[in-house]
């Protein structure tokens, strides 16, 4: 890695540190930060206390580094540069340009697919659970099931989550709501010799009631909640549900369960 980098600077290439960083193995989740964004000091506020050898690292990232350093120091600066890039990256991907770049990568499926079977391989988005470095590694958010997963590859499992930040995914869908997938009520029903398992089925019924309660609550606030299945086969059931869940929670609860017993 170091050698790659050395040969590049030695041969007088310019503005290639970021290119090299983006294209190196394991960094597939990152997008390239614009030169202008990096050179605007305002965007880097506070980072000088977070990153050792801040100035050198910044020089390296912006390809103006020309210090004659020994290998040890160089390696440390290189490490700092990666850390700095990550921290700036977390800020950059919340800007309009950054969001657009990440949305492109999302559409291409650069971040992998959701491992959950019922999500049918929905594309994922990288996210952090914290905005502070060294707290947790990067997670992958599926907008279809709204849950977070660990990356399956170990080379991604060591990336700091703070390089993407905890706000990124929510911000992306605030800015591009048309990218939101249709949600589905499909779920896995554990069965033994074809019979549903009571414990899981009871939980599923409870969750179904919870869903319908939320839906009614939101409907009262004029927010429509739609699931894919609503258009298809559950229309009738839905109307029944609505009629019966409106008056009281308890009635809805009894109804959902008795329908299941009848089947």
């Amino acid at each position: 890695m170091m050698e790659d980098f050395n040969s590049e600077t030695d041969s007088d290439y310019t503005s290639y540190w970021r290119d090299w960083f983006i294209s190196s193995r394991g960094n597939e989740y990152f997008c390239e930060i614009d030169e202008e964004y990096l050179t605007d000091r305002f965007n880097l506020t506070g980072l000088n206390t977070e990153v050792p050898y801040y100035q050198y690292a910044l020089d390296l990232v912006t390809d103006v580094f020309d210090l004659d350093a020994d290998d040890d120091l160089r390696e440390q600066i290189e490490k700092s540069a990666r850390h700095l890039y990550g921290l700036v990256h977390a800020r950059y991907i919340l800007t309009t340009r950054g969001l657009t770049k990440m949305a492109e990568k999302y559409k291409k499926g650069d971040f992998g697919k959701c491992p959950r079977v019922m999500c049918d391989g929905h594309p994922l988005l990288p996210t952090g659970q914290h905005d502070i470095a060294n707290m947790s590694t990067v997670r992958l958010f599926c907008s279809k099931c709204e849950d977070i997963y660990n990356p399956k590859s170990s080379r991604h499992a060591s990336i700091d989550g703070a390089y993407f930040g905890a706000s990124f995914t929510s911000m992306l869908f605030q800015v591009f709501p048309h990218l939101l997938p249709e949600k589905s009520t499909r779920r896995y029903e554990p069965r033994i010799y074809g019979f549903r398992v009571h414990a899981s089925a009871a939980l599923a019924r409870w969750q179904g009631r919870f869903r319908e309660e939320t839906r009614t609550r939101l409907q009262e606030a004029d927010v429509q909640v739609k699931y894919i299945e609503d258009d298809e086969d559950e229309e009738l059931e839905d109307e029944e549900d609505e009629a019966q869940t409106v008056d009281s929670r308890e009635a809805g609860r009894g109804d959902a369960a008795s329908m299941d017993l009848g089947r």
Partner: protein
Amino acid sequence: MSSSEGAPESWISSFCSLMGHEFFAEVSEDFIEDDFNLTGLQSQVPMYKEALEMILDVEPEEDEDEEEEEEEEEDEDELLGDEKPPGYRRERRHARVASDLSVIESSAELLYGLIHQRYITSRPGIQQMLEKYEMQHFGVCPRVYCNGCKVLPVGRSDTPGQETVKLFCPSCQDLYTPPNSRFHSVDGAFFGTTFGCLFFMTFPDLDVGPRFDASLNTLSPTRSASIPSTVTTTTTTSAGTSHQPTSDTPRPVWPTEMNGVRTANFAPGLGEGKMYESRIYGFRVSERSRSGPRMKWLRMKPTDINQLDEMAYFKALQHYDNDGDAQMGGDSTQNAIANRKKAPMRRRRYPTDPMNINGAAA
């Protein structure tokens, strides 16, 4: 030719050591040799007899014995014409070894898979899978809040050729695609729909709670500190669910078993504090927002596990209906009735109730 094949490794163990077959247990020969266990498979597998012989490694030996005989017989055949059907059949099989070997091989794999589906629900089979499970041969759940809970291979269909093998996580009760693509060609029917749940009902004491306890504990205080609004909820719930025994949880009302499952082992990865909440700059996204949370239900679990006791609830409801005309909206009275009703009923149910699922599972 056959001596080299027959010597060190059986077909079964070489099949199980193939790349991508790491999930399979080695079915014991006793199990296969019992015809009862193979009921109905004959119609599902082409070249059933040859496939079965291949699995049991009986064919090579037969071949060895027969080869000399066959040569003699072939001569006889020529003399006698087509009048000797057994000899003719042998000759056909001999010719098949070259051309149809791949067909028999794939039939054998199919047959082995179908036997495997039955074997892993039998007593020795499920025991063998337990060993594999405990050694984490099947991997862990990719979901962050399941904290690396070990998963189990299952199928979504019992008919071969429909779907590949999936992984069932007991902690979130959900199904995942194996991360490694070499499992994307393994048929899910070879594990079957029944195995996943039967396994956890057979071993109800298996701890499916969080495994990276240490790392979780170092993370959780800092997490709740950085997100002040969840301090109360995260700390209480993690104290309640992440530490293993339920006996010292802050909720004495929890029964140790509910619906046939230990409450401590029932979907420990779900519920408040174990769900992802989308936030922007630390503020939760409102559910009224267009991009607000819509899938919370999928990872929810009642904070009071008693809400899943539907029997108690129905009893209370019936009693309530018989009593007649109290107001439906009166939540407090109804809960009071439910609680009053629940307590004696559970006491009654555990020792003697013939419907007791817990007794049957243990």
